[in-house]
């Protein structure tokens, strides 16, 4: 099936070449970082995780969201999603690959990465994160590939796939839960020290991921002869609508606990993000933009009139995606580090090479996504006799 990714229109080749060019620029920056050290980034002694780890956190959510199409189809026999489960699974493959790359580029000594396997340490959450991320990657590759192959050959998927598919459902939840545990189990980091962090991560994941999937479905419909379907898109839109609502609700719960209890260690981070602290507030406009975008998207998505209008739906999905990306991909990580444990306010802003490396990893993700979607869609067209 892989050969399907090698042939395509001029547009397809052009898009892939453009992605490769972006990857090339980022790779050159990475070589510089490899040679110089992480000092070329904006990270510091106080904000020791930055843009890379934030992107990783956001993308774990996108990856986990595949479960939102897999679960209704396989557990509740919601037939309509059978058409697009493969798209969800392949989106997960691309996202987890990006996650692993983002962790890798964040390492100070990348050549020693195998030490995590040579000296396995179960009391470190990072050890478990490695297991769940790699496991999820393999599950989705195997399941996606074998189910697509069966569809191509017009036979039922192999029986041994069923347990793997059922396993992939709790596994999806686990990847984002374990990722939240990286942060929320640390003493002295008031911003993350909350039991609602994992639920918050999952709710924003189930909003951002399906929103992206809706956008991808619309692109597929526009560019190919395969139509993911109106019902499918509308069902996904309902998932996004309630997930983003729950996400904002969880955030407000957090705000209540933090400000009513009035404990400075917990308040200071949210103050820093939304009003600035001791005259520092580089993220303030971003965080308010994120809140406004999320609230606007709730209005557009919960209201059936606007949700059913596909043009408005596109706007709403872009709004959700950007809103949740700012929340997690910008605020969530540096917000936890400012102020630092000694209550100094040292801000973090990513540098240009750091951003270029991050964009390159996104480009790798889109390269993988495009190739996998190309394969899936070509086969769907063939099966439907459209090719």
């Amino acid at each position, binding site marked *: 099936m892989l050969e399907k990714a090698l042939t395509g229109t001029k547009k397809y080749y052009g898009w892939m070449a453009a992605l490769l060019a972006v990857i090339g620029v980022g790779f050159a920056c990475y070589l510089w970082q490899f040679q110089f050290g*992480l000092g070329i980034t904006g990270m510091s*002694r106080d904000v020791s995780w930055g843009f890379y780890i934030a992107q990783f956190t956001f993308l774990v959510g996108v990856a986990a969201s595949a479960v939102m199409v897999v679960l209704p189809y396989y557990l509740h026999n919601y037939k309509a999603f059978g058409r697009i489960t493969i798209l969800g699974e392949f989106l997960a493959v691309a996202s987890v690959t990006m996650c692993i790359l983002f*962790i890798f580029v964040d390492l*100070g*000594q990348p050549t020693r990465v195998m030490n995590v396997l040579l000296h396995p340490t179960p*009391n470190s959450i990072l050890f478990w994160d490695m297991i769940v991320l790699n496991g999820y990657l393999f599950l989705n590759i195997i399941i996606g590939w074998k189910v697509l192959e069966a569809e191509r050959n017009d036979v039922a998927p192999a029986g041994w796939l069923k347990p793997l598919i059922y396993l992939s459902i709790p596994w999806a939840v686990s990847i984002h839960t374990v990722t939240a545990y990286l942060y929320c189990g*640390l003493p002295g980091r008031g911003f993350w020290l909350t039991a609602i962090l994992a639920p918050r991560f999952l709710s924003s994941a189930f909003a951002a991921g399906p929103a992206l999937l809706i956008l991808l479905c619309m692109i597929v419909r526009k560019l190919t002869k395969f139509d993911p379907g109106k019902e499918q898109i509308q069902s996904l839109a309902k998932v996004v609508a309630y997930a983003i609502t729950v996400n904002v609700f969880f955030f407000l719960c957090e705000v209540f606990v933090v400000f009513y209890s009035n404990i400075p260690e917990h308040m200071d981070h949210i103050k820093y993000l939304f009003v600035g602290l001791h005259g520092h507030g580089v993220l303030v406009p971003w965080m308010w933009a994120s809140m406004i975008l999320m609230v606007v998207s709730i209005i557009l998505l919960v209201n059936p009139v606007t949700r059913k209008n596909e043009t408005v739906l596109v706007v709403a999905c872009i709004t959700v995606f950007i809103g949740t990306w700012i929340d997690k991909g910008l605020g969530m990580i540096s917000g*936890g580090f400012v102020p630092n444990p*000694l209550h100094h306010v040292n801000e973090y802003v990513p540098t240009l090479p750091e951003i270029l490396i991050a964009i390159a990893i996104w480009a790798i993700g889109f390269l993988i996504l495009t190739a996998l979607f190309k394969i899936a869609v070509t086969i769907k067209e063939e099966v439907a006799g459209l090719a």
Partner: protein
Amino acid sequence: MKSSRRRFLKIAGISALGLGTKPVLDVMASSGEMAAPKTTKGENALVAQRWGMIIDTRKLQSEEDLEPMIEICDKIHNVPKFENKNHEVKWLWEEEFKHVFPMQEQDFLGYRLKHMSFLTLCNHCEKAPCVRVCPTKATFKREDGIVLMDFHRCIGCRFCMAACPYGSRSFNFRDPRPFIKETNPDFPTRTKGVVEKCNFCAERLAVGKIPACVEVSKGALTFGDLDDPESEVRKVLRNNYTIRRKPALGTGPSVFYIV
């Protein structure tokens, strides 16, 4: 044709399996003969159940009192000096009261405490969060309570820096060697991409010397075994009111302050 191809694959598979298991079997076979790596303590080594330190801030009135300690620490441990604040490496440094004890700050703090500098260093916690989170055991706790770093195993993930509630850890954002004034050949320099921190002068304890900062402190710092009721530290702790940083977190710091 077909059956011979199948046979070939079978044999190839079994051979590959055999080659793959050989190293494992070798290790198993030799495990009985292989002696565990031997480590011995030096003849003069200072030993304890749990090392601890007391900082008597009454005897450290001005920054001039702190400087010799910081200077000797930086010098013997090859701590680099960076101009870029983002790249800073700190083992032993000064902070104001409101930063060392952030949640104990109050409006009516005495003038002396409000304006003096406090020594800040790794607390060598009893239940160290940095040890708990390290994915490679590059940060580990020794039998005598000292939290140490293996600079050769550290992958530079910086999980320990996120976990430390005292901001005691530094990362080598670039090669530190060009920024060391005068290299001490008796202590390793570090490479870019690894984390480091105060080691309670483990290298000096091994040859019978107390930590360098304690040695030059003119009696302001006391160092000793917290588990030995007869030790000097325990005597000072008995006779003075001491506080520790962020006690509510349950980390159990081994560094005490008399304020």
